[in-house]
């Protein structure tokens, strides 16, 4: 099998020592060049996007054999396709002859993909099956078995489909470390699990992907202070003033033990979910047969019903808003651009009118035109514009919030937690980012094995 050569290392000034100077957990700063530098970006493509579990969609996007989505792993176009045996394959959307994109539509159902350039055809498994004029033009020199698109590893977690190019990377379950239960808050509330509301909204934000991923890993601060007050205003009934809304001040942030994931949410603030998603959805989530089932499955009422306004990032680029049930991937498009792909999940067992409210309220709140998300698009873009400045790029940013204020002894919320307004999870995110760029071997990078820890 002609192995593709390893991606040549780009000329870079970024030695491991130089990368270690870009973020200092104890000093609580990050060097702003991590958001602008092309050498760093290329290293990220190789060492992060080439080795991480990347979320591509939901199983119900492709229910039937042959159903496929055209999507991306980092900047690489891939086809995610359902097989006859119900498994899912993900392979590079690139013909092995001259590199043409072999599937040129966003979604559909296919038995095969025929390249539009010279007609090389691949079956649904991604195997090269037909080459025009094979006998007369190639004679015996072409071994079709060696020239199929490159396949990624695929694993799913409660309906979400992830893929990874790296055969040596830990399993998806290991990758999640102790963050899975914070995602279960959205994905494991009912026996039947979740399904997707059809359609993926895609748009471009000219900013580095880490601004988005970091905000969803760690930043409730912006939502509870100034960034999203006007979004809350949009959801208020006519007779309620913003001053009547209980502003968030109680809640928890979680930082995963390994892997750079994190989550945060409010407690004892039921009006917050209602003002974002409306009273019917809030009742469904907190006080309904569905909430009772969620409480049975997830364990405790404080866990199943009380958290609201949740945000979560699974490193590097999968984020979600459990409760709102917005799920997204931040696809990098160069150091200064991100393509946002958003969809909504809802419990399969939810009543039709609740599903419809989830659809409408996601469009209204967290979409390109959503009354909350439209303001994020403004902020991240302005930060990136400022970073055109040489002096701006020589400036360090502060990530000190919540330093040494974490604990790990909560009876309800597992893992390392602290006050909701914190940057502990952001420090975890950048710390893992730094490790992935400086440790090339899984021998040092892999999560601590429970078996070894127990010995």
């Amino acid at each position, binding site marked *: 099998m002609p192995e593709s050569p390893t991606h040549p290392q780009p000329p870079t000034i970024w030695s491991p020592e130089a990368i270690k100077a870009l973020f200092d957990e104890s000093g609580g700063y990050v060097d702003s060049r991590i958001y602008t530098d092309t050498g760093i970006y290329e290293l990220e493509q190789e060492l992060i996007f080439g080795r991480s579990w990347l979320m591509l969609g939901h199983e119900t996007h492709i229910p039937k054999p042959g159903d496929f989505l055209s999507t991306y792993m980092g900047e690489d176009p891939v086809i995610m396709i359902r097989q006859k045996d119900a498994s899912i394959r993900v392979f590079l959307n690139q013909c092995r002859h001259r590199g043409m994109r072999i599937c*040129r*539509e*966003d*979604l*559909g159902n296919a038995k095969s993909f025929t390249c539009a350039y010279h007609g090389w055809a691949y079956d649904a498994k991604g195997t090269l099956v037909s080459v025009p004029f094979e006998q007369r033009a190639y004679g015996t020199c072409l071994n079709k078995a060696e020239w199929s698109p490159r396949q990624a590893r695929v694993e799913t977690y409660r309906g979400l489909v992830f893929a990874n190019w790296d055969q040596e990377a830990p399993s998806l379950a290991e990758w999640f470390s102790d963050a899975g239960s914070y995602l279960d808050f959205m994905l494991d509330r009912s026996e039947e699990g979740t399904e997707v*509301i*059809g*359609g*993926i*909204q*895609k*748009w*471009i*934000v*000219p900013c580095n992907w880490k601004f988005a991923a970091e905000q969803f890993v760690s930043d409730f601060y912006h939502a509870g202070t*100034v*960034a999203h*007050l*006007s*979004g809350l*205003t*949009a*959801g*208020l009934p*006519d007779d309620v003033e913003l001053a009547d809304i209980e502003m968030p001040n109680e809640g928890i942030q979680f930082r995963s033990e390994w892997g750079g994931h994190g989550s945060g949410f409010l407690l004892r603030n039921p009006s917050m979910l209602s003002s974002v998603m409306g009273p019917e959805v809030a009742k469904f989530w907190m006080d309904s047969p569905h909430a009772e089932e969620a409480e049975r499955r997830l364990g405790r009422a404080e866990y199943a019903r009380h958290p609201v306004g949740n945000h979560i990032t699974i490193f590097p680029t999968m984020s979600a808003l459990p409760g709102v049930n917005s799920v997204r991937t931040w696809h990098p498009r160069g150091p200064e651009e991100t*393509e946002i792909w*958003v*969809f*909504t999940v809802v419990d399969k067992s939810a009543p039709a009118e609740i599903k*419809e409210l989830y*659809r*409408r309220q*996601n*469009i*209204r709140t967290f*979409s*390109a*035109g959503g*009354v909350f*998300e*439209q*303001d994020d*698009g*403004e*902020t*991240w*873009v*302005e930060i990136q*514009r400022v970073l055109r400045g040489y002096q701006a790029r020589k400036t360090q940013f502060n990530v000190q919030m919540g330093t040494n204020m974490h604990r790990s002894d909560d009876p309800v919320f597992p893992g390392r937690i602290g006050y909701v307004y914190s940057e502990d999870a952001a420090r975890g995110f950048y710390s893992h980012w730094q490790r992935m760029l400086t440790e090339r071997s899984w021998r040092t990078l892999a999560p601590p094995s429970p078996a070894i820890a127990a010995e």
Partner: protein
Amino acid sequence: MPTMLKEPVAAFDPTKVGVDLQHEIEQFYYREAALLDRREFKAWLSLLAEDLRYFMPLRMSRMNRFDDKEFSDDNEYASFDEDIVAMRGRIRKVLTDFSWSENPYSKTRHLVSNVIVEPLDDEPGTYKVHSAFVTYRNRAERQVDIWTGERRDVIRRAANPYGFEISKRTILIDQSTLLANNLSIFF
């Protein structure tokens, strides 16, 4: 809306749409556009009917034989799918001092053209109006966004200074991946 693009273009019937009616409806659209560009958002809101649906489906790239599925369906994700209550909320938001995506305001220009009027026979004073738009936006110092597309409206005569209200607006935008950092303006 699987058949969205397939809807036939109505033949021109001068006995149904005379010069006066065409002129009247075009003048309504010019004034609606002026309200948006002059940021008279409350006045614009007053042109939206109680039974409003303000809808912008997603648009996808499909092979030609599936082009009837180019737009997301009624029960799927969309860029907008708002009723009058949601639109009141959006106007309330944009009029706060802390709606950062529109403070400072975008500089916009809504151009409306290719207006095709079709009276609805069973609803006197109600018209199906298809039109083309070019909407330009400048934000901050150098950001420029240009959207083109088609509006498929249902408007009806109403007792307001501009003569009509908008009952349905379906916006067919000519982009699949949206090439702007947000959709914080009105279409």
